[in-house]
């Protein structure tokens, strides 16, 4: 049993293990007993926090903690260093917040999906080689798509398919790149690529990473799919996919100019779309594109301060974006809609939701005292100090747009704007408030004590956020954006619409492909029908008479016996398993894949 020996060789509890174990256990539990088993949901996040904190306190420097042999390759599942730890740290915390927020959900399917998704994210962050990375990368795609599908609406099903197709597309680039790289270099090791030494396969891998980072124009899956996710699933979605992509970019592609410029474009693109969007969760989704833009830009500039800024901003972003999605989720849960045109006048009806949302809103906007301020300014100052003035100005412009759309427009039209709402509101469970409360407290805590976050950062940099100039500059920027909004509040009024983005382009490509296949097929089919009617039918009738004779005389006796065998021996079960829904087959394939993986590992 070499597998067990390998297990004993793991010197730390890989956070993915507990999440995978819970996903497996949930398969044997019943939805109607969720009041008992739901407390189990908190166990993997708590274990993950304990594991990551103990690693943080451990010896410094890079460590390889869990290398295992698998199919003739060595999988490095536990590369632990400061870069992986800062991401693992916030992933662990956010997984706890996410599961607390989802504690009232009686659907084990949703929790299993979240477990697989989070397990995939931890696996990617600790992966030391491309093969392990690819396995967990795909696990994330599959876990996350179920958080969209399980919303159960036709729109969610359609958006989920588009999401899955796009991530398969990205995953194939990653796979192709890592195989080409192995063919050329003979190694799967996941190491940094120097920008001037990058080869074609490095760019193929980069495309795979950029899909998950929602890099414009590969981003459209995000604002298309996230707003269709389940109320609690969107909180997980907002945290893990794009930030795992940020991690791998920081690990492998620091200093690439395309990231510096493209990141700045992302900052502005997301903000521009959010300004004209009506659906609260789609506004927040566009702001993921925008905020990840800051991180991608920082990675592209590639100095110690901008890389630290990118990591710190990823940390802060996970907390406040989760909080914002929790706030929008509460609105959707309670009022039944996430559209600004249908909301309004809710401030005094849902004051705690409003306050929680506003903490997230001022955090994302970079208001002093909140976490966004101590991380966003680090990236922008880093860009300016690297003499990338235009990039820094682009990010400042995006900061204005962020406060305009998420900080003022969204809460103004959701909570104020109209007279006090008299709409019937569904009571919000206590755990949703608790999730928001913890996230709010952390946003404030990090804003007040930035050193607690800076101490986790991978590169030594001297950055002091609370100087009189930084604080004044942030206040001027936010204050005068507020003034601009008050002048423009009659013009910025949202309207119900779906705005054209790149997803319309790939939907058009899909429709074109279907036409390309179906039109010639239909033409051939028409001709074939004619030929068949004139020639084939006569021959078939003659053959039919012959086979009928043979069937009656010889076959019946043999078949009767075996037909009975099939009917009694599980044929009905097999038929029931054929639901015809591709989601079910995908879930079965994942389960089978994980079992095979485990079997080969233990027995191989």
């Amino acid at each position: 049993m070499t597998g067990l020996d390998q297990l004993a060789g793991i010197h730390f509890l890989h956070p993915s293990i507990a999440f995978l174990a819970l996903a497996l256990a949930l398969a044997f539990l019943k939805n109607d007993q969720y009041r008992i088993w739901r407390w189990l949901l908190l166990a993997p996040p708590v274990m993950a926090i304990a594991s990551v904190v103990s690693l943080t306190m451990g010896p410094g420097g890079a460590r390889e903690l869990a290398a295992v042999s698998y199919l003739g390759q060595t999988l490095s599942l536990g590369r632990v260093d400061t870069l992986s730890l800062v991401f693992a740290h916030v992933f662990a915390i956010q997984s706890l917040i996410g599961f607390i927020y989802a504690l009232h959900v009686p659907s084990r399917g949703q929790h299993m999906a979240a477990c697989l998704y989070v397990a995939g994210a931890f696996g990617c962050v600790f992966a030391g080689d491309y093969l392990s990375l690819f396995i967990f990368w795909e696990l994330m795609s599959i876990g996350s798509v179920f958080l969209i599908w399980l919303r159960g609406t036709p729109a969610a099903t359609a958006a989920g398919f588009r999401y899955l197709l796009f991530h398969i597309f990205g995953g194939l680039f990653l796979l192709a790149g890592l195989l080409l790289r192995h063919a050329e270099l003979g190694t799967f090791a996941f190491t940094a690529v120097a920008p001037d030494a990058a080869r074609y396969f490095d760019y193929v891998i980069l495309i795979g990473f950029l899909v998950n980072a929602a890099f414009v124009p590969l981003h459209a899956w995000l604002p298309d799919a996230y707003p269709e996710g389940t109320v609690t699933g969107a909180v997980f979605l907002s945290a893990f996919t794009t930030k795992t992509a940020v991690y791998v970019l920081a690990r492998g592609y620091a200093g690439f100019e395309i990231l510096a410029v493209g990141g700045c474009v992302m900052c502005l693109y997301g903000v521009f779309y959010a300004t004209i969007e009506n659906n609260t969760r789609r506004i927040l989704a566009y702001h993921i594109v925008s905020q990840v833009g800051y991180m991608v830009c920082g990675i592209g500039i590639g100095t110690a301060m901008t890389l630290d800024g990118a990591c710190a901003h990823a940390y802060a972003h996970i907390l406040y974006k989760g909080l914002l999605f929790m706030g929008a989720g509460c609105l959707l849960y309670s009022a039944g809609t996430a559209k600004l045109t249908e909301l309004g006048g809710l401030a005094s009806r849902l004051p705690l939701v409003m306050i929680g949302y506003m903490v997230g809103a001022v955090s994302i906007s970079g208001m002093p005292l909140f976490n966004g301020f101590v991380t966003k300014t680090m990236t922008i100052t880093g860009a300016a100090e690297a003499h990338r003035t235009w990039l820094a100005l682009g990010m400042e412009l995006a900061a204005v747009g962020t406060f305009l759309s998420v900080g003022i427009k969204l809460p103004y039209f959701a909570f104020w704007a109209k007279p006090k709402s008299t709409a019937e509101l569904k009571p919000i469970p206590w755990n949703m408030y608790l999730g928001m409360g913890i996230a709010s407290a952390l946003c404030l805590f990090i804003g007040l004590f930035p050193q607690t976050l800076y101490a986790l950062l991978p590169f030594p940099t001297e950055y002091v956020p609370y100087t009189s100039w930084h604080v004044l500059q942030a206040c001027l920027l936010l204050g005068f954006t507020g003034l601009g909004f008050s002048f423009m509040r009659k013009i910025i009024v949202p309207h119900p619409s779906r705005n054209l983005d790149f997803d319309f382009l790939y939907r058009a490509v899909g429709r074109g492909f279907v036409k390309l296949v179906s039109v010639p097929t239909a033409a051939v089919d028409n001709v074939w029908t004619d030929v068949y009617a004139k020639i084939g039918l006569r021959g078939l009738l003659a053959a039919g008479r012959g086979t009928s004779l043979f069937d009656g005389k010889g076959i019946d006796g043999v078949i009767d016996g075996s037909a009975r065998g099939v009917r009694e021996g599980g044929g009905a079960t097999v038929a029931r398993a054929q639901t015809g829904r591709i989601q079910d087959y995908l879930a079965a394939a994942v389960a089978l894949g994980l079992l095979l993986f485990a079997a080969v590992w233990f027995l191989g």
Partner: protein
Amino acid sequence: MREPNSLGAWLDAARNNARAFKILLYAVLAVLVGLNVVILPRHPHFEGEGVPGFWAVFALVAAIGMVVVLKKIVYPLLARPEEDTNDRS
């Protein structure tokens, strides 16, 4: 869970005093610009940053410009009828 009524009542009162909040905003903005005359960056990253009121004008022009351009010019080009997104769940 029930939301606290007292907090809701306070927010209703605040809403009825919107004018007072607006005056407060103007006062705060005036103070900020005043401070900007005294407090300037020690090492401006570009020339404009050293001019008092630069970021105030930047933010105001950017906010107004963004709303006008995006809502009046870009939005009519991009807007399509909303699909049935089935929000009512």
